[in-house]
């Protein structure tokens, strides 16, 4: 286990050094990403400026949920670049090289690259969360602070699980299915607003199908001390983020089944 962590750190250090070789390009890409993600947060501010409230939610509450979701996704997205590129690896047969190394395949792919510019999503997420926390008059008990940590960890696990599942499909389709991006990016777009504003079928899909609401909306309510308009009990809001971690563990099991079914395309 410790040995794996050590190797993971080495992988990441190599990847970071490689990216810093092209500093100007890196900085411009970072700037571009920042404009796009900051724009999304600005859209929320613009809409609240026009409409004052979103069916009873105020701008700080929405900013808080937005922050939790975007921080989670930024962490997951930066750590799973290798899985994003996995479709190409299957197509070219490069995955064979990974298989003959004496380390777990998931670990090698996760350490493939830590794409720094993907962290740009983190900035607006952190800004939104801090700004919301300063204005919401929160009660920072130990339980609430840990719930925030757990909920970000659960969220990152859930998004990582989704990206792993998307990559796993490539074992059978030999290409990454773009359509699955609807679940990840669409999931971020959906759950950065309180889930109760959507139609029931849609809201249920993101609660029971792809349980993104369990790592953002429900724990955020508990931290903010807001009663749920959907009527879930407090104990559920505290335990819900565990579902995200369970989802990642499940996804890694499916990944293992995929690896066992892998037939190389290489010659």
């Amino acid at each position: 286990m410790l040995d794996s962590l050590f190797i993971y750190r080495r992988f990441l250090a190599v990847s970071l050094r490689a990216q810093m070789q092209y500093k100007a390009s890196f900085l411009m890409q970072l700037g571009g990403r920042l404009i796009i993600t900051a724009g999304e947060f600005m859209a929320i501010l613009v809409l609240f400026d026009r409409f004052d409230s979103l069916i009873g939610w105020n701008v700080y509450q929405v900013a808080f949920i937005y922050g939790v979701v975007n921080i989670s996704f930024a962490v997951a997205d930066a750590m799973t670049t290798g899985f994003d590129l996995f479709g190409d690896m299957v197509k070219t047969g490069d995955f064979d090289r990974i298989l003959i190394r004496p380390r777990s395949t998931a670990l090698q792919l996760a350490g493939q690259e830590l794409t720094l510019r993907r962290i740009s999503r983190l900035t607006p997420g952190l800004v939104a969360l801090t700004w919301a926390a300063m204005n919401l008059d929160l009660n920072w008990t130990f339980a609430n602070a840990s719930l925030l940590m757990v909920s970000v960890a659960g969220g990152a696990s859930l998004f990582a699980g989704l990206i792993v599942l998307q990559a796993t499909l490539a074992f059978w389709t030999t290409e990454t299915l773009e359509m699955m991006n609807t679940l990840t990016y669409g999931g971020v777009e959906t759950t950065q607003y309180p889930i109760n504003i959507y139609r029931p079928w849609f809201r249920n899909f993101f609660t029971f199908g792809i349980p993104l609401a369990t790592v953002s909306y429900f724990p955020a309510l508990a931290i903010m001390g807001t009663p749920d308009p959907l009527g879930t009990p407090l104990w559920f809001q505290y335990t819900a983020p565990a579902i995200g971690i369970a989802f990642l563990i499940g996804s890694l099991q499916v990944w293992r089944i995929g690896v066992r079914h892998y037939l190389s395309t290489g010659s």
Partner: protein
Amino acid sequence: MISYWAIVSARFRSLLQYRSAALAGLVTQIVWGMIRVMIFQAFYSSTNAEQPMDGSDVETYIWLGQAFLAALPWNIDTDLRSLIRSGGIGYELIRPVDLYSYWLSRALSWRTAPMLMRAIPLLIFAFVVMGMSPPVSWAAAAAFFVSMCAAILLSSAITTFLNVTMLWTITGDGVTQMTFGLVLIFSGMLVPLPLYPDWSQPIINAMPFRGLVDTPYRLYLGHIPVSEFAGVLTHQLVWILAFIVAGRIAMARALRRVVVQGG
């Protein structure tokens, strides 16, 4: 002129081959449109105050945006990038055509073909299933059509400008992402422009990006009356001209000092 038309149509036909990518894009954009429509419906149901744009108009605006998404200047021509990287750009220089017009023609097809493949099925879906409204009048429909053509030309001129910057930067990714960020915010893709704060309207209206999205869509809705058509079209044309001139100057400068890669 005939040779440029041949470039447009050949490139157009080759781009029509990417059908599975178009299908994936279609599904994604339908889901995306539904999410955005629900968010705006929730905001509109929270207020009784008069808004600068009706809720139903916003829905149509969102569906138009999803339908014509691929027409925005959101990426650079990867074929040109590999030419620049490999040194194949040398062949481009000896072609008996004006290089800028050649690249602009390529960009025109690059912005039109993928967009058409997605727009037609998406608009049918939005009309039949989502209750999107048709143009307010025949005159509005005609104004929308002309303005949409101008929007595609504007997008192609911006794309060509981005392609030209690759002659300096080789990758072009950074400039493209920064430009696309500005496009998203100031074209109306993220939030329909009339909903931005009143003080910001004159600034947003002066910028080129509304010509990509907001101008044609509001003509469609009748939110910009047909009587103002000449004015908004002029705004689009002035910016098209500006990007073409800037692109030509930048290209001329780059070619004076171009270093052909590879041996």
